[in-house]
């Protein structure tokens, strides 16, 4: 089996997200970088499926040259190949992103054959457009379901499960297929020392992206109005219990 996973490098903010003075981006001074937890699960899912069914897995990102860090992280937990589409770290809208990624997939498939399964995250952690995977799937004329928390490969059929309020929906798609996965699909492993060392040797395949901008243009980022609270401190040890239960009574939750 051949599996491709798409990941996006994003800042890892803490208690609040600060915006740069020009209001164009997240202030990343002192911040680390990561990918969406959904994408971490997609990477882990790809590694597990290859462990079960054999084959090889590839990870691809469109972003700044530094996104090599996220590619190598994926390699450190078992992904075999890495592709970097360096767009200089510009903010690309979802249509443009999808076009560039679609082009790259066509090129990779022309060289090495089709991917049986392509995994996206349910949504990017930062911009949350909820669409890049769907657009790519339409372009490649492949079945695509988003929000997936369970995947089984049964011969030429991909069985995918999606959690909804009332339970679970089951989808069965012919290969090749595309899925958008959600955190909870699995519990991603941590890289081992051996994995980290091996990931340093993985060759990064550079595919330059070209695509025109789409119709959604960012004007500025802003923080939502923050909750200000004059926190009432009920105590500092177990003697606070009666005051806590008074609060339960007051709120009618007892």
């Amino acid at each position: 089996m051949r599996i491709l996973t798409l990941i996006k490098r994003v800042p890892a903010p803490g208690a609040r997200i600060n915006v740069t003075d020009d209001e164009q981006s997240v202030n990343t001074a002192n911040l680390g970088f990561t990918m969406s937890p959904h994408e971490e699960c997609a990477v882990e899912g790809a590694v597990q499926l290859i462990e079960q069914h054999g084959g090889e897995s590839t990870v691809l990102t469109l972003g700044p040259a530094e996104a090599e860090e996220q590619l190598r992280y994926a390699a450190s937990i078992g992904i075999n190949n890495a592709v970097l589409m360096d767009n200089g770290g510009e903010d690309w809208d979802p249509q443009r992103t999808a076009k560039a990624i679609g082009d790259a997939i066509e090129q990779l498939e022309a060289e090495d054959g089709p991917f049986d399964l392509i995994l996206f995250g349910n949504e990017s952690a930062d911009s949350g457009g909820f669409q890049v995977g769907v657009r790519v799937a339409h372009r490649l004329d492949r079945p695509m379901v988003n929000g997936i928390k369970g995947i089984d490969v049964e011969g030429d059929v991909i069985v995918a499960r999606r959690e909804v309020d009332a339970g679970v929906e089951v989808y069965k798609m012919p290969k090749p297929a595309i899925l958008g996965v959600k955190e909870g699909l699995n519990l991603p492993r941590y890289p081992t020392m051996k994995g980290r060392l091996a990931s340093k040797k993985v060759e990064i395949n550079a595919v330059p992206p070209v695509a025109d901008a789409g119709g959604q243009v960012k004007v500025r980022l802003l923080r939502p109005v923050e909750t200000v609270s004059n926190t009432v401190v009920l105590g500092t040890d177990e003697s606070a219990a009666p005051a806590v239960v008074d609060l339960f009574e007051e709120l009618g939750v007892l």
Partner: protein
Amino acid sequence: MSSVLVLVESDQGAMAPATHEALAFARDFAAAAGLAVHALVCGTESGMAVEAGAHGAASVHVADHPLLDDYGPEAWGETLAQAITQYAPAVVVACGTDRGNEVMAQAAARLDLPFVANCTEVEPGATEMTRTQWGGSLLEQVTLDASTRMLSVAPHAFEGSLAAVPGAGMMDMFAPVLDDSLSRTKIVDRVVLSSGITLSTAPVVIGGGRGVGSAEAYAPLEELAELLGGRVGCSRAVTNNGWRPHSDQVGQTGTRIAPELYIACGISGAIQHWVGAKASKNILAINTDNEANMVTKAGHAVIGDLHTLIPAITAEVKKRKGL
């Protein structure tokens, strides 16, 4: 008169409550923009035209096709794309739920139109809007340049309500042309889970974070949750450690909760956790650190060790309940 077309989200013939939010938004938006409100129902109609009318739709296009008798993102997306081509609405709106965003993305891909997900404010021309990023921790103002403006409204950004002046809800049958191959993404099976209180509906949620320390240490939180008729939730640090299943996780990539009371124990209140908890009506933070974000944002706090405090609270609750 040109229209705002609202995608009705439904499951097995029942309208999703989120659609009421999209219709309420569309009603006010249409009034300001001088447009008519239309709705699109996919599959079994079963009274949804009347319901959409009561929420303000003047006209309801009912797409009837065997492929639409259950949900499938491709068949629904193709149907929406054909409806947009046929009725040429100025604006297309869905609620930004899993299905809403998925069907809009499918239709937008087919028409090669932009699609702006999770808007919280839209100018009457629908060329400028504000949308959420980071699951609502950040907002982005965007401009939209498109012949047809496709957008979803962020869940809970607009309140669903009956229209003061109901729409006619006039039914109009619409026959999409759908290729059999689109059945490839139709639901083939459902597993119905036993209904009970879920994280998103529980009146009380007791969240335990990294400060709880181990999987076993959730037992006292479970006991208190049971006494209060609530549910235990957790942070991502906890699911990552394998202490609790992901279905208990509150936050950007977990569940959004809105209980009467959220008791956050040993949770620092990272922004991605906070966006999932901020709709709680009251928050009590229990934390050893009085500067933790969760503490400074909560209405009430106890600055102390959750391991001694939770059992003490449980004992006090039992005493008052005479147990």
